[in-house]
């Protein structure tokens, strides 16, 4: 694993963080400019970046304030959108098993959607460690903070089309999605999550849409994996997804090795999954 925070670790963390850092320049500048238009000064923008460190959150603060929302409703909405961070923290728990408390806390406090994706990828490939993951977070945060403060300082002197710049982040999410393993259980997780987000938005639940969608995806994939068993979850490929799901319904009856007491909650969960 090598020495923590060694030169080698710093360099590998930097090259892993580079795409995020460039993306954060692209969206950090417009975010800083927008912050300037609601009357925030560079010091306030710096505090937001250093402590809150949330792209979606900081854009929301500006947009909602411009729309005349109250301070309480801004705080509540931003917090609701950021609840998805709980999933990331939970998923890093096994990784941080033997990590010192301070390092784990610092790392967890600086996770974002993008750095979560990059670090997950590197942990999955192996030869990665929490100190490098923390440095990926901190490099990214530096880029985000500098871009925001610069954007706020120059203000509206520069016109950047925000929707085009913001697409850099969407592109990063697409890349992280496309590079996932396309097992049938994962495909179910993806499809249900995307559908869940759309349904939430249609129902007016824009704030918690990402969290609800993602949790629905995890639950349905889990139900599928439990019903079909490891065989279906690990070996089936994309076109086999539908067939495997149908097969799963049959094999649930045949799964004699599963004690009947466990089969009952599984049935319940399956019903829940279908209702969604």
């Amino acid at each position, binding site marked *: 694993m090598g020495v923590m925070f060694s030169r080698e670790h710093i360099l590998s963390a930097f090259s892993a963080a580079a795409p995020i850092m460039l993306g954060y320049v692209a969206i950090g500048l417009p975010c800083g400019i927008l912050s300037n238009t609601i009357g925030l000064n560079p010091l306030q923008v710096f505090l937001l970046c250093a402590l809150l460190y949330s792209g979606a959150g900081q854009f929301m603060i500006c947009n909602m304030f411009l729309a005349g929302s109250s301070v309480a409703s801004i705080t509540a909405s931003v917090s609701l959108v950021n609840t998805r961070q709980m*999933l990331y923290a939970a*998923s890093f*728990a096994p990784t941080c098993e033997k990590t010192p408390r301070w390092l784990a806390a610092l790392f967890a*406090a600086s996770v974002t959607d993008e750095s979560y994706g990059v670090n997950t990828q590197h942990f999955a490939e192996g030869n990665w460690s929490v100190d490098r993951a923390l440095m990926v977070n901190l490099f990214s945060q530096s880029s985000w903070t500098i871009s925001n403060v610069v954007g706020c300082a120059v203000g509206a002197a520069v016109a950047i089309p925000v929707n085009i710049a913001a697409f850099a982040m969407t*592109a990063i999410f*697409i890349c992280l999605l496309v590079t996932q393993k396309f097992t049938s259980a994962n495909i179910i997780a993806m499809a249900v999550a995307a559908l869940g987000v759309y349904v939430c938005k249609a129902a007016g639940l824009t704030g918690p849409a990402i969290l609800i969608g993602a949790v629905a995806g995890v639950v349905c994939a889990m139900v599928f994996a439990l019903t079909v068993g490891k065989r279906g979850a690990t070996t089936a490929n994309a076109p086999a997804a539908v067939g495997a799901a149908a097969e799963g319904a049959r094999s649930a009856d045949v799964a004699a090795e599963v004690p009947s007491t466990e089969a009952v909650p599984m049935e319940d969960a399956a019903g829940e999954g279908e209702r969604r």
Partner: protein
Amino acid sequence: MSWDQFWVVLVGCVLAMWACRVIPLFLLKGKALPENLERALGFIPPAAFAALVANDLLNPGMFDAGIWPAAIPLVAAIACALVAAKTKSLLWTAVAGVGVYAALAFFAV
């Protein structure tokens, strides 16, 4: 936004954010996780990225203003997916995505 308003938003959002980012890690850390929980945690990445992409690309009523404005990000997203599958590079995907998006927006107007 006044300093008073700013402090309320900052402190409120930061406390909620830190709670979400740090508490689950320490609740689960140091325990031998049941196999099924570990499996469920493994489904978080595909579900979360699909949710984030859907959140950026899909909106109810997105085609109300005509097909083209809403189709630009979708076409750019397809370009991203192709580049991502080919290169597996975050950087190239971001460059391709923003490039295609900007080109489409430029020629569409």
